[in-house]
Protein backbone atom coordinates (compact mmCIF):
# COMPACT_ATOMS: atom_id res chain seq x y z
CA UNK A 1 0.00 0.00 0.00
CA UNK A 2 1.27 3.46 -0.88
CA UNK A 3 2.34 5.69 2.01
CA UNK A 4 0.03 8.61 2.80
CA UNK A 5 0.68 12.14 4.05
CA UNK A 6 -1.12 15.15 5.43
CA UNK A 7 -0.02 18.74 4.78
CA UNK A 8 -0.94 21.50 7.24
CA UNK A 9 0.12 24.90 5.88
CA UNK A 10 -1.85 28.14 6.05
CA UNK A 11 -0.37 29.79 2.97
CA UNK A 12 -2.05 28.17 -0.05
CA UNK A 13 0.80 28.70 -2.50
CA UNK A 14 3.29 27.12 -0.12
CA UNK A 15 1.02 24.13 0.42
CA UNK A 16 0.78 23.68 -3.34
CA UNK A 17 4.52 24.04 -3.75
CA UNK A 18 5.26 21.46 -1.06
CA UNK A 19 2.78 19.08 -2.65
CA UNK A 20 4.43 19.57 -6.06
CA UNK A 21 7.94 19.05 -4.66
CA UNK A 22 6.79 15.93 -2.84
CA UNK A 23 5.26 14.56 -6.04
CA UNK A 24 8.70 14.80 -7.65
CA UNK A 25 10.71 13.54 -4.66
CA UNK A 26 8.37 10.75 -3.59
CA UNK A 27 6.04 9.82 -6.45
CA UNK A 28 4.27 6.98 -4.62
CA UNK A 29 3.35 9.19 -1.64
CA UNK A 30 -0.34 10.02 -1.60
CA UNK A 31 -1.45 13.32 -0.06
CA UNK A 32 -4.72 12.52 1.71
CA UNK A 33 -5.49 16.04 2.87
CA UNK A 34 -4.14 19.57 2.82
CA UNK A 35 -5.43 21.86 5.58
CA UNK A 36 -4.75 25.45 6.70
CA UNK A 37 -4.76 25.42 10.49
CA UNK A 38 -3.78 23.31 13.47
CA UNK A 39 -7.26 22.32 14.63
CA UNK A 40 -8.21 21.13 11.14
CA UNK A 41 -4.92 19.25 10.96
CA UNK A 42 -5.66 17.33 14.16
CA UNK A 43 -9.12 16.46 12.92
CA UNK A 44 -7.95 15.36 9.47
CA UNK A 45 -5.07 13.33 10.91
CA UNK A 46 -7.40 11.45 13.29
CA UNK A 47 -9.78 10.73 10.46
CA UNK A 48 -7.30 9.75 7.73
CA UNK A 49 -4.49 8.35 9.89
CA UNK A 50 -1.73 9.20 7.42
CA UNK A 51 1.82 7.85 7.70
CA UNK A 52 3.51 11.23 7.51
CA UNK A 53 2.52 14.68 8.78
CA UNK A 54 3.97 17.88 7.32
CA UNK A 55 3.09 20.59 9.86
CA UNK A 56 3.81 24.29 9.43
CA UNK A 57 4.99 25.68 12.77
CA UNK A 58 3.16 29.00 12.52
CA UNK A 59 -0.48 28.66 11.65
CA UNK A 60 -3.57 30.66 12.65
CA UNK A 61 -5.26 29.42 15.79
CA UNK A 62 -3.19 26.43 16.77
CA UNK A 63 0.43 26.22 15.55
CA UNK A 64 2.11 23.04 14.30
CA UNK A 65 3.81 22.11 17.59
CA UNK A 66 0.64 22.45 19.65
CA UNK A 67 -1.34 20.57 17.02
CA UNK A 68 1.17 17.72 17.15
CA UNK A 69 0.94 17.61 20.95
CA UNK A 70 -2.84 17.54 20.85
CA UNK A 71 -2.78 14.86 18.19
CA UNK A 72 -0.43 12.74 20.32
CA UNK A 73 -2.96 12.99 23.15
CA UNK A 74 -5.94 12.06 21.01
CA UNK A 75 -4.16 9.39 18.96
CA UNK A 76 -5.76 5.94 19.36
CA UNK A 77 -3.49 3.39 20.98
CA UNK A 78 -3.94 0.74 18.27
CA UNK A 79 -2.51 2.73 15.36
CA UNK A 80 1.15 3.68 14.83
CA UNK A 81 1.80 7.39 15.36
CA UNK A 82 2.68 9.16 12.08
CA UNK A 83 6.18 10.40 11.32
CA UNK A 84 6.37 14.16 11.95
CA UNK A 85 8.06 16.72 9.73
CA UNK A 86 7.85 20.38 10.72
CA UNK A 87 7.98 23.07 8.08
CA UNK A 88 9.16 26.54 9.01
CA UNK A 89 10.29 29.72 7.27
CA UNK A 90 12.50 30.83 10.08
CA UNK A 91 12.60 29.88 13.68
CA UNK A 92 16.08 30.05 15.04
CA UNK A 93 15.60 28.17 18.25
CA UNK A 94 13.29 25.57 16.79
CA UNK A 95 15.77 24.82 14.03
CA UNK A 96 18.55 24.31 16.57
CA UNK A 97 16.30 22.04 18.57
CA UNK A 98 15.39 20.04 15.48
CA UNK A 99 19.04 19.51 14.59
CA UNK A 100 19.43 17.37 17.69
CA UNK A 101 16.17 15.52 17.18
CA UNK A 102 14.93 12.64 15.11
CA UNK A 103 11.76 14.57 14.33
CA UNK A 104 12.57 16.15 11.00
CA UNK A 105 12.07 19.65 9.71
CA UNK A 106 12.18 21.40 6.36
CA UNK A 107 12.96 25.06 5.81
CA UNK A 108 10.83 27.25 3.56
CA UNK A 109 11.37 27.84 0.66
CA UNK A 110 11.44 24.07 0.33
CA UNK A 111 14.31 22.97 -1.88
CA UNK A 112 14.35 19.74 -3.86
CA UNK A 113 17.74 18.52 -2.56
CA UNK A 114 16.86 19.04 1.09
CA UNK A 115 13.42 17.51 0.66
CA UNK A 116 15.00 14.43 -0.95
CA UNK A 117 17.01 13.79 2.23
CA UNK A 118 13.89 14.14 4.35
CA UNK A 119 12.04 11.73 2.09
CA UNK A 120 14.83 9.15 2.43
CA UNK A 121 14.74 9.47 6.22
CA UNK A 122 10.97 9.10 6.17
CA UNK A 123 11.12 6.01 3.98
CA UNK A 124 13.55 4.44 6.40
CA UNK A 125 11.41 5.40 9.37
CA UNK A 126 8.29 3.94 7.77
CA UNK A 127 10.13 0.71 6.94
CA UNK A 128 11.37 0.43 10.54
CA UNK A 129 7.92 1.17 11.84
CA UNK A 130 6.46 -1.65 9.80
CA UNK A 131 9.04 -3.95 11.36
CA UNK A 132 9.07 -2.77 14.98
CA UNK A 133 6.19 -0.35 15.52
CA UNK A 134 6.61 3.35 16.38
CA UNK A 135 8.20 4.63 19.47
CA UNK A 136 5.53 7.13 20.55
CA UNK A 137 7.52 7.76 23.73
CA UNK A 138 10.47 9.09 21.71
CA UNK A 139 8.23 11.35 19.63
CA UNK A 140 6.62 12.67 22.80
CA UNK A 141 10.00 13.42 24.31
CA UNK A 142 11.00 15.36 21.23
CA UNK A 143 7.74 17.29 21.13
CA UNK A 144 8.07 18.16 24.78
CA UNK A 145 11.54 19.47 24.14
CA UNK A 146 10.38 21.55 21.16
CA UNK A 147 7.37 22.95 22.97
CA UNK A 148 9.48 24.16 25.85
CA UNK A 149 11.17 26.52 23.41
CA UNK A 150 14.25 28.52 24.24
CA UNK A 151 15.22 28.30 27.90
CA UNK A 152 13.86 31.48 29.48
CA UNK A 153 16.22 33.82 31.26
CA UNK A 154 16.20 33.17 35.00
CA UNK A 155 13.54 35.31 36.61
CA UNK A 156 12.82 36.21 40.20
CA UNK A 157 10.29 33.75 41.57
CA UNK A 158 6.78 34.86 42.32
CA UNK A 159 5.81 34.84 45.97
CA UNK A 160 2.25 36.10 45.59
CA UNK A 161 -0.27 36.24 42.77
CA UNK A 162 -1.94 39.63 42.46
CA UNK A 163 -5.36 39.46 40.87
CA UNK A 164 -7.81 42.26 40.34
CA UNK A 165 -11.22 41.48 41.81
CA UNK A 166 -13.72 44.22 41.07
CA UNK A 167 -12.17 47.46 42.30
CA UNK A 168 -9.60 45.84 44.56
CA UNK A 169 -6.57 43.64 44.17
CA UNK A 170 -6.44 40.27 45.89
CA UNK A 171 -3.13 38.76 46.91
CA UNK A 172 -2.82 34.98 46.87
CA UNK A 173 0.34 33.42 48.37
CA UNK A 174 1.90 31.16 45.75
CA UNK A 175 1.81 28.17 48.14
CA UNK A 176 -1.98 28.37 48.30
CA UNK A 177 -2.42 28.00 44.55
CA UNK A 178 -3.58 24.49 43.65
CA UNK A 179 -3.30 24.94 39.90
CA UNK A 180 -3.22 27.45 37.03
CA UNK A 181 -5.43 26.90 34.04
CA UNK A 182 -5.37 28.90 30.79
CA UNK A 183 -8.90 29.96 29.84
CA UNK A 184 -9.32 32.06 26.71
CA UNK A 185 -7.54 35.33 27.43
CA UNK A 186 -7.24 34.76 31.17
CA UNK A 187 -5.49 32.34 33.46
CA UNK A 188 -7.60 30.85 36.25
CA UNK A 189 -5.74 30.70 39.53
CA UNK A 190 -7.47 28.02 41.58
CA UNK A 191 -6.81 27.84 45.32
CA UNK A 192 -8.42 26.07 48.26
CA UNK A 193 -11.04 28.75 48.88
CA UNK A 194 -12.03 29.73 45.37
CA UNK A 195 -10.38 31.14 42.31
CA UNK A 196 -9.22 34.42 40.75
CA UNK A 197 -8.43 35.44 37.17
CA UNK A 198 -5.19 37.03 35.99
CA UNK A 199 -4.18 38.30 32.57
CA UNK A 200 -0.54 37.13 32.59
CA UNK A 201 -0.28 34.35 29.98
CA UNK A 202 0.77 30.93 31.23
CA UNK A 203 3.97 30.98 29.21
CA UNK A 204 5.06 34.22 30.92
CA UNK A 205 4.07 32.82 34.29
CA UNK A 206 5.99 29.54 33.99
CA UNK A 207 9.54 30.93 34.18
CA UNK A 208 8.54 32.73 37.40
CA UNK A 209 7.40 29.54 39.13
CA UNK A 210 9.52 27.05 41.04
CA UNK A 211 9.89 24.17 38.58
CA UNK A 212 10.31 21.67 41.41
CA UNK A 213 6.93 22.62 42.82
CA UNK A 214 4.83 23.60 39.83
CA UNK A 215 4.49 21.01 37.06
CA UNK A 216 3.01 21.53 33.65
CA UNK A 217 0.64 18.64 33.04
CA UNK A 218 -1.16 19.90 29.97
CA UNK A 219 -0.76 22.64 27.39
CA UNK A 220 -2.95 24.90 29.51
CA UNK A 221 -2.52 23.47 33.00
CA UNK A 222 0.20 23.91 35.62
CA UNK A 223 -0.38 22.14 38.92
CA UNK A 224 1.32 22.47 42.33
CA UNK A 225 2.80 19.02 42.87
CA UNK A 226 2.13 19.14 46.63
CA UNK A 227 -1.58 19.69 45.98
CA UNK A 228 -1.88 16.42 44.05
CA UNK A 229 -3.33 13.58 46.08
CA UNK A 230 -3.38 10.75 43.57
CA UNK A 231 -3.07 9.87 39.90
CA UNK A 232 -5.54 7.58 38.14
CA UNK A 233 -5.43 5.86 34.79
CA UNK A 234 -8.75 5.50 32.96
CA UNK A 235 -9.82 2.74 30.54
CA UNK A 236 -8.35 4.63 27.55
CA UNK A 237 -5.01 4.75 29.34
CA UNK A 238 -5.19 8.47 30.10
CA UNK A 239 -3.99 9.92 33.40
CA UNK A 240 -6.12 12.11 35.68
CA UNK A 241 -5.06 13.93 38.83
CA UNK A 242 -7.12 14.12 42.01
CA UNK A 243 -6.27 17.16 44.15
CA UNK A 244 -6.53 17.54 47.92
CA UNK A 245 -9.76 19.36 48.75
CA UNK A 246 -10.89 19.72 45.14
CA UNK A 247 -13.55 17.79 43.33
CA UNK A 248 -12.24 18.63 39.88
CA UNK A 249 -10.12 16.00 38.16
CA UNK A 250 -7.29 17.33 35.97
CA UNK A 251 -6.43 15.43 32.76
CA UNK A 252 -2.71 14.88 32.13
CA UNK A 253 -1.47 15.19 28.56
CA UNK A 254 0.43 12.19 27.19
CA UNK A 255 3.24 14.62 26.71
CA UNK A 256 3.62 15.01 30.47
CA UNK A 257 2.55 11.57 31.65
CA UNK A 258 6.23 10.70 32.25
CA UNK A 259 6.17 13.00 35.32
CA UNK A 260 4.09 10.52 37.29
CA UNK A 261 5.71 7.22 38.18
CA UNK A 262 6.01 5.28 41.42
CA UNK A 263 9.36 5.58 43.21
Amino acid at each position, binding site marked *: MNPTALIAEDEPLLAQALQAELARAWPELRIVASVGDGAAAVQAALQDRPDVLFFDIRMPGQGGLDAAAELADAWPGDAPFPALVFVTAYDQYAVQAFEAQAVDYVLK*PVQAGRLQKTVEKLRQALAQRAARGTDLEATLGQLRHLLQGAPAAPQPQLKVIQASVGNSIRLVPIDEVAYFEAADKYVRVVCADGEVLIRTPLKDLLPQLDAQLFWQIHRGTVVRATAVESVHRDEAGKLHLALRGHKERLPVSRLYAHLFKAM
Partner: protein
Amino acid sequence: MRRLEALDKLQNMLQVMAFCLGIATAQYIVTPERPYGPTVAYSLSIGLVTWAIVDLGRTFMPSAAETGWPSGPTAIALVVVGIAGGFFIGNGIGGVVCRTFGLYGSAPLPDPRAELRSSVVITVLAGIVGCYYFYSVGRSSYLERKMGEAKQHADEARLKLLETQLEPHMLFNTLANLRALIGVDPGRAQQMLDHMIAYLRATLDASRATTHPLQAEFDRLRDYLELMAIRMGPRLTYTLDLPPDLANVRVPTLLLQPLVENAIQHGLEPKVQGGRITVRAARQHGQLVVTVDDTGVGDAHAPSQGSGFGLSQIRERLAALHGDRADLAFRTGQDGANARITLPIA
Protein backbone atom coordinates in the same frame (compact mmCIF):
# COMPACT_ATOMS: atom_id res chain seq x y z
CA MET B 1 20.04 70.42 33.68
CA ARG B 2 20.39 73.10 36.37
CA ARG B 3 23.98 73.61 35.41
CA LEU B 4 23.02 74.08 31.80
CA GLU B 5 20.42 76.61 32.85
CA ALA B 6 23.00 78.57 34.85
CA LEU B 7 25.33 78.56 31.85
CA ASP B 8 22.49 79.80 29.66
CA LYS B 9 21.81 82.64 32.06
CA LEU B 10 25.50 83.58 32.19
CA GLN B 11 25.57 83.64 28.42
CA ASN B 12 22.51 85.89 28.36
CA MET B 13 24.16 88.21 30.89
CA LEU B 14 27.32 88.54 28.81
CA GLN B 15 25.21 89.29 25.74
CA VAL B 16 23.38 92.00 27.70
CA MET B 17 26.70 93.51 28.81
CA ALA B 18 27.98 93.58 25.23
CA PHE B 19 24.73 95.21 24.14
CA CYS B 20 25.07 97.86 26.91
CA LEU B 21 28.66 98.62 25.91
CA GLY B 22 27.40 99.02 22.34
CA ILE B 23 24.77 101.53 23.46
CA ALA B 24 27.30 103.46 25.57
CA THR B 25 29.71 103.59 22.64
CA ALA B 26 26.96 104.79 20.30
CA GLN B 27 26.10 107.55 22.78
CA TYR B 28 29.77 108.54 23.01
CA ILE B 29 30.00 108.76 19.23
CA VAL B 30 26.93 111.02 19.08
CA THR B 31 28.05 113.24 21.97
CA PRO B 32 31.84 112.96 22.16
CA GLU B 33 32.05 116.02 24.47
CA ARG B 34 30.68 113.86 27.36
CA PRO B 35 33.06 111.52 29.24
CA TYR B 36 32.85 107.81 28.25
CA GLY B 37 33.23 106.31 31.74
CA PRO B 38 29.96 107.44 33.32
CA THR B 39 27.97 106.52 30.20
CA VAL B 40 29.36 102.98 30.37
CA ALA B 41 28.66 102.76 34.09
CA TYR B 42 25.05 103.92 33.76
CA SER B 43 24.43 101.79 30.68
CA LEU B 44 25.80 98.63 32.31
CA SER B 45 23.93 99.23 35.59
CA ILE B 46 20.61 99.83 33.88
CA GLY B 47 21.10 96.91 31.49
CA LEU B 48 22.17 94.42 34.16
CA VAL B 49 19.35 95.33 36.53
CA THR B 50 16.84 95.01 33.71
CA TRP B 51 18.38 91.67 32.73
CA ALA B 52 18.32 90.44 36.33
CA ILE B 53 14.64 91.28 36.75
CA VAL B 54 13.44 90.01 33.37
CA ASP B 55 15.70 87.04 32.66
CA LEU B 56 15.96 85.70 36.21
CA GLY B 57 12.37 86.68 36.93
CA ARG B 58 10.95 84.61 34.09
CA THR B 59 12.61 81.43 35.36
CA PHE B 60 10.56 81.72 38.55
CA MET B 61 7.31 82.09 36.65
CA PRO B 62 5.33 79.37 34.94
CA SER B 63 6.66 79.79 31.41
CA ALA B 64 5.58 78.29 28.12
CA ALA B 65 7.87 75.51 26.93
CA GLU B 66 7.84 77.04 23.45
CA THR B 67 9.73 80.20 24.28
CA GLY B 68 10.69 80.04 27.91
CA TRP B 69 8.56 83.12 28.54
CA PRO B 70 5.37 83.55 30.56
CA SER B 71 2.13 84.04 28.63
CA GLY B 72 1.11 87.39 27.01
CA PRO B 73 0.10 89.94 29.69
CA THR B 74 2.43 88.47 32.34
CA ALA B 75 5.38 88.70 29.96
CA ILE B 76 4.54 92.36 29.14
CA ALA B 77 4.17 93.18 32.83
CA LEU B 78 7.53 91.52 33.53
CA VAL B 79 9.22 93.54 30.78
CA VAL B 80 7.63 96.80 32.01
CA VAL B 81 8.70 96.10 35.60
CA GLY B 82 12.16 95.12 34.36
CA ILE B 83 12.64 98.29 32.35
CA ALA B 84 11.24 100.55 35.06
CA GLY B 85 13.34 98.77 37.71
CA GLY B 86 16.36 98.99 35.45
CA PHE B 87 15.82 102.71 34.99
CA PHE B 88 15.42 103.65 38.65
CA ILE B 89 17.66 101.11 40.39
CA GLY B 90 20.22 101.09 37.56
CA ASN B 91 20.44 104.89 37.57
CA GLY B 92 20.91 104.79 41.32
CA ILE B 93 23.69 102.21 41.11
CA GLY B 94 25.26 104.08 38.19
CA GLY B 95 25.34 107.30 40.24
CA VAL B 96 26.95 105.54 43.20
CA VAL B 97 29.58 103.88 40.95
CA CYS B 98 30.39 107.20 39.28
CA ARG B 99 30.81 109.02 42.57
CA THR B 100 32.78 106.19 44.22
CA PHE B 101 35.29 105.85 41.42
CA GLY B 102 35.24 109.54 40.44
CA LEU B 103 34.41 108.68 36.88
CA TYR B 104 33.45 112.23 36.00
CA GLY B 105 36.92 113.43 36.91
CA SER B 106 37.13 117.12 36.24
CA ALA B 107 34.18 117.21 33.89
CA PRO B 108 31.10 119.05 35.14
CA LEU B 109 28.33 116.93 36.57
CA PRO B 110 25.48 116.73 34.04
CA ASP B 111 22.07 118.10 34.86
CA PRO B 112 19.90 115.02 35.52
CA ARG B 113 16.74 116.79 34.40
CA ALA B 114 18.14 117.74 31.00
CA GLU B 115 19.21 114.14 30.51
CA LEU B 116 15.94 112.65 31.71
CA ARG B 117 14.21 112.44 28.34
CA SER B 118 17.04 110.84 26.37
CA SER B 119 17.81 108.53 29.28
CA VAL B 120 14.20 107.28 29.43
CA VAL B 121 13.99 106.86 25.66
CA ILE B 122 17.26 104.92 25.45
CA THR B 123 16.40 102.66 28.41
CA VAL B 124 12.92 101.84 27.11
CA LEU B 125 14.06 101.21 23.53
CA ALA B 126 17.09 99.16 24.56
CA GLY B 127 14.97 97.20 27.04
CA ILE B 128 12.37 96.33 24.43
CA VAL B 129 14.99 95.44 21.83
CA GLY B 130 16.86 93.25 24.32
CA CYS B 131 13.74 91.45 25.52
CA TYR B 132 12.52 90.91 21.98
CA TYR B 133 15.93 89.54 21.03
CA PHE B 134 15.89 86.95 23.84
CA TYR B 135 12.27 86.12 23.11
CA SER B 136 13.00 85.29 19.47
CA VAL B 137 16.17 83.37 20.35
CA GLY B 138 14.11 81.22 22.72
CA ARG B 139 11.43 80.74 20.11
CA SER B 140 13.73 79.77 17.29
CA SER B 141 15.68 77.32 19.42
CA TYR B 142 12.35 75.80 20.44
CA LEU B 143 11.35 75.41 16.80
CA GLU B 144 14.72 73.90 15.96
CA ARG B 145 14.32 71.43 18.79
CA LYS B 146 10.83 70.53 17.61
CA MET B 147 12.06 69.96 14.07
CA GLY B 148 14.83 67.76 15.43
CA GLU B 149 12.27 65.74 17.37
CA ALA B 150 10.02 65.32 14.33
CA LYS B 151 12.99 64.09 12.34
CA GLN B 152 13.95 61.71 15.12
CA HIS B 153 10.42 60.29 15.23
CA ALA B 154 10.47 59.77 11.49
CA ASP B 155 13.81 57.97 11.79
CA GLU B 156 12.49 55.76 14.57
CA ALA B 157 9.40 54.94 12.53
CA ARG B 158 11.55 53.94 9.61
CA LEU B 159 13.78 51.78 11.74
CA LYS B 160 10.81 50.09 13.35
CA LEU B 161 9.27 49.45 9.97
CA LEU B 162 12.53 48.09 8.68
CA GLU B 163 12.58 45.63 11.54
CA THR B 164 9.08 44.38 10.71
CA GLN B 165 9.77 44.19 7.02
CA LEU B 166 13.08 42.46 7.36
CA GLU B 167 11.70 40.25 10.12
CA PRO B 168 13.06 36.85 9.00
CA HIS B 169 9.75 35.07 9.22
CA MET B 170 7.98 37.61 7.03
CA LEU B 171 10.88 37.78 4.59
CA PHE B 172 11.42 34.05 4.13
CA ASN B 173 7.72 33.28 3.86
CA THR B 174 7.39 35.96 1.18
CA LEU B 175 10.40 34.56 -0.65
CA ALA B 176 9.00 31.04 -0.36
CA ASN B 177 5.76 32.23 -1.96
CA LEU B 178 7.71 33.98 -4.67
CA ARG B 179 9.67 30.82 -5.38
CA ALA B 180 6.45 28.84 -5.61
CA LEU B 181 4.86 31.40 -7.94
CA ILE B 182 7.82 31.42 -10.33
CA GLY B 183 7.05 27.77 -11.06
CA VAL B 184 3.30 28.05 -11.51
CA ASP B 185 2.61 31.62 -12.65
CA PRO B 186 5.68 33.64 -13.73
CA GLY B 187 3.56 36.69 -14.60
CA ARG B 188 2.11 36.91 -11.11
CA ALA B 189 5.53 36.19 -9.64
CA GLN B 190 6.86 39.25 -11.45
CA GLN B 191 4.02 41.36 -10.07
CA MET B 192 4.71 40.09 -6.58
CA LEU B 193 8.38 40.91 -6.96
CA ASP B 194 7.48 44.45 -8.09
CA HIS B 195 5.35 44.96 -4.99
CA MET B 196 8.13 43.64 -2.83
CA ILE B 197 10.69 45.95 -4.44
CA ALA B 198 8.46 48.99 -3.94
CA TYR B 199 7.71 47.90 -0.40
CA LEU B 200 11.36 47.46 0.54
CA ARG B 201 12.43 50.64 -1.27
CA ALA B 202 9.94 52.66 0.74
CA THR B 203 11.73 51.80 3.97
CA LEU B 204 15.31 51.48 2.85
CA ASP B 205 15.26 54.87 1.15
CA ALA B 206 17.20 56.91 3.69
CA SER B 207 16.79 60.28 1.98
CA ARG B 208 13.04 60.23 2.30
CA ALA B 209 11.24 63.39 3.35
CA THR B 210 9.31 63.43 6.62
CA THR B 211 6.01 63.90 4.78
CA HIS B 212 4.59 62.73 1.47
CA PRO B 213 1.22 62.86 -0.34
CA LEU B 214 -1.53 60.61 0.97
CA GLN B 215 -1.58 58.93 -2.45
CA ALA B 216 2.01 57.73 -1.93
CA GLU B 217 1.05 56.44 1.53
CA PHE B 218 -1.84 54.46 0.04
CA ASP B 219 0.42 53.10 -2.71
CA ARG B 220 2.80 51.71 -0.07
CA LEU B 221 -0.15 50.14 1.79
CA ARG B 222 -1.25 48.53 -1.45
CA ASP B 223 2.22 47.03 -1.99
CA TYR B 224 2.17 45.49 1.48
CA LEU B 225 -1.42 44.27 1.24
CA GLU B 226 -0.81 42.75 -2.20
CA LEU B 227 2.13 40.79 -0.79
CA MET B 228 0.03 39.61 2.12
CA ALA B 229 -2.92 38.79 -0.16
CA ILE B 230 -0.73 36.47 -2.21
CA ARG B 231 0.54 34.82 0.96
CA MET B 232 -2.77 34.52 2.76
CA GLY B 233 -4.85 33.75 -0.32
CA PRO B 234 -8.60 33.86 0.31
CA ARG B 235 -8.03 34.57 4.01
CA LEU B 236 -7.31 38.24 3.26
CA THR B 237 -9.48 40.73 1.42
CA TYR B 238 -8.86 44.43 1.55
CA THR B 239 -10.29 47.78 0.48
CA LEU B 240 -8.32 51.00 0.07
CA ASP B 241 -10.56 54.03 -0.27
CA LEU B 242 -8.89 57.36 -1.06
CA PRO B 243 -11.09 60.14 -2.49
CA PRO B 244 -9.22 61.94 -5.34
CA ASP B 245 -9.46 65.36 -3.65
CA LEU B 246 -7.43 64.06 -0.69
CA ALA B 247 -4.73 62.39 -2.77
CA ASN B 248 -2.34 65.33 -2.46
CA VAL B 249 -2.76 66.05 1.25
CA ARG B 250 0.65 65.64 2.86
CA VAL B 251 0.96 63.15 5.69
CA PRO B 252 3.95 61.85 7.71
CA THR B 253 5.66 59.09 5.73
CA LEU B 254 4.51 55.55 6.46
CA LEU B 255 2.23 56.77 9.23
CA LEU B 256 -0.49 54.23 8.41
CA GLN B 257 1.79 51.29 7.68
CA PRO B 258 2.13 50.14 11.32
CA LEU B 259 -1.66 50.21 11.72
CA VAL B 260 -2.17 47.96 8.72
CA GLU B 261 0.65 45.65 9.82
CA ASN B 262 -0.92 45.43 13.28
CA ALA B 263 -4.27 44.60 11.71
CA ILE B 264 -2.66 41.75 9.78
CA GLN B 265 -0.33 40.43 12.48
CA HIS B 266 -2.59 40.70 15.50
CA GLY B 267 -6.01 40.69 13.82
CA LEU B 268 -6.16 38.48 10.76
CA GLU B 269 -3.14 36.16 10.91
CA PRO B 270 -4.27 34.49 14.17
CA LYS B 271 -7.82 34.09 12.83
CA VAL B 272 -8.43 30.80 11.06
CA GLN B 273 -10.99 32.08 8.58
CA GLY B 274 -9.13 35.37 8.01
CA GLY B 275 -11.05 38.56 7.29
CA ARG B 276 -11.10 41.99 5.73
CA ILE B 277 -9.06 45.17 6.14
CA THR B 278 -10.57 48.51 5.17
CA VAL B 279 -8.48 51.69 4.99
CA ARG B 280 -10.52 54.79 4.33
CA ALA B 281 -9.61 58.48 4.07
CA ALA B 282 -12.27 61.16 4.45
CA ARG B 283 -12.59 64.87 5.06
CA GLN B 284 -14.56 65.73 8.20
CA HIS B 285 -14.99 69.26 9.55
CA GLY B 286 -12.01 70.43 7.53
CA GLN B 287 -9.80 67.69 8.94
CA LEU B 288 -8.38 64.54 7.42
CA VAL B 289 -9.71 61.36 9.02
CA VAL B 290 -8.13 58.02 8.14
CA THR B 291 -9.58 54.81 9.54
CA VAL B 292 -8.09 51.31 9.52
CA ASP B 293 -10.66 48.62 10.32
CA ASP B 294 -10.17 44.89 10.45
CA THR B 295 -12.49 41.97 11.12
CA GLY B 296 -9.79 39.96 12.93
CA VAL B 297 -9.70 38.40 16.36
CA GLY B 298 -10.10 41.79 18.08
CA ASP B 299 -9.41 41.73 21.79
CA ALA B 300 -9.58 37.95 22.06
CA HIS B 301 -5.84 37.48 21.81
CA ALA B 302 -3.78 40.57 22.52
CA PRO B 303 -4.79 42.33 25.73
CA SER B 304 -1.83 44.68 25.45
CA GLN B 305 -2.98 46.14 22.14
CA GLY B 306 -3.56 49.85 22.21
CA SER B 307 -0.36 50.53 24.05
CA GLY B 308 2.05 48.86 21.68
CA PHE B 309 5.16 50.50 20.33
CA GLY B 310 3.57 51.09 16.92
CA LEU B 311 0.69 53.10 18.38
CA SER B 312 2.66 55.19 20.86
CA GLN B 313 5.11 55.91 18.10
CA ILE B 314 2.37 57.16 15.79
CA ARG B 315 1.05 59.34 18.60
CA GLU B 316 4.48 60.86 19.16
CA ARG B 317 4.95 61.58 15.49
CA LEU B 318 1.52 63.21 15.28
CA ALA B 319 2.21 65.30 18.37
CA ALA B 320 5.61 66.40 17.08
CA LEU B 321 4.14 67.58 13.79
CA HIS B 322 0.70 68.86 14.76
CA GLY B 323 0.61 69.22 18.56
CA ASP B 324 -2.85 68.53 19.94
CA ARG B 325 -4.54 69.16 16.60
CA ALA B 326 -3.90 65.55 15.60
CA ASP B 327 -5.10 62.40 17.30
CA LEU B 328 -5.04 58.60 17.15
CA ALA B 329 -7.86 56.56 18.63
CA PHE B 330 -7.64 52.78 18.81
CA ARG B 331 -10.04 50.19 20.12
CA THR B 332 -10.51 46.46 19.86
CA GLY B 333 -13.82 44.70 20.19
CA GLN B 334 -15.42 41.30 19.78
CA ASP B 335 -15.28 41.44 16.00
CA GLY B 336 -12.02 43.18 15.20
CA ALA B 337 -10.06 46.34 15.73
CA ASN B 338 -10.52 49.92 14.66
CA ALA B 339 -7.92 52.68 14.43
CA ARG B 340 -8.75 56.27 13.57
CA ILE B 341 -6.26 59.05 12.87
CA THR B 342 -7.40 62.65 12.72
CA LEU B 343 -5.02 65.33 11.50
CA PRO B 344 -5.26 68.86 10.15
CA ILE B 345 -5.20 69.36 6.40
CA ALA B 346 -2.17 71.60 5.91
